[in-house]
């Protein structure tokens, strides 16, 4: 799997893919896209590193334990955001009724809980894809 063209091309392209994925996650409440598509793009870029270089280079980008912790942490962050809404006096997973800072509609830091939950779900989807790929590719030894 050591191909010169694939290595140099992916070395050029991967930073742009990662910036694009982060952009889609962060602008989930403003433009089309959101947590699932942005997380999928970011995870696919990490898998591309492992495919064009080798598995060790991919593992150096994001180690297995970190991916597993991020994967569980994304789901936990979602649930905890819902519980914080209860603590602030709203219903479970409520946004404006709980009093999250809404900001001005259309700016980047707005929409309260939607912004936070989008980031958590994006992290979770990206690490899910990376973990799934690594476990399938180096599964039974």
């Amino acid at each position, binding site marked *: 799997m050591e191909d010169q063209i694939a290595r140099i091309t992916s070395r050029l392209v991967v930073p742009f893919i990662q910036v694009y994925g982060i952009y889609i996650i962060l602008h989930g409440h403003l433009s*089309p*896209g*959101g947590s699932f598509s942005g997380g*999928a793009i970011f995870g*696919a870029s990490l*898998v591309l590193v492992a495919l064009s270089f080798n598995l060790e280079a991919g593992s150096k980008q994001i180690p297995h334990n970190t991916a597993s912790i991020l994967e569980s942490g994304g789901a936990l962050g979602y649930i905890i955001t819902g519980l914080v809404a209860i603590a602030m006096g709203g219903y479970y997973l409520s946004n404006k009724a709980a009093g999250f800072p809404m900001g001005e509609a259309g700016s980047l830091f707005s929409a309260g809980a939607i912004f936070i939950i989008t980031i958590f779900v994006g992290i979770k989807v990206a690490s899910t894809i990376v973990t799934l*790929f690594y476990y*399938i*590719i180096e599964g039974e030894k």
Partner: protein
Amino acid sequence: MIDILNILLLLFLIVCAVGVAYIRDLLSAVILFSSFGLIMAIIWQQLSAPDVAMVEAALGTGVISLLLIAAISKTRRTE
């Protein structure tokens, strides 16, 4: 004009779907399936659903074919 494009996309979608079922080489079937996902993403965009188009392009074209190729590299290439 845009109707002709939509009809061509739908025809190509059907061709890809039938080809995935008929082809014997599994790697070619995965490539056909990812092209199916790409056509499907363009069709979602034509149906004015850019969110679904983005998810389809990222998951249906990229990640699914990656996982299937990983599974093929663990098993046999032909049926």
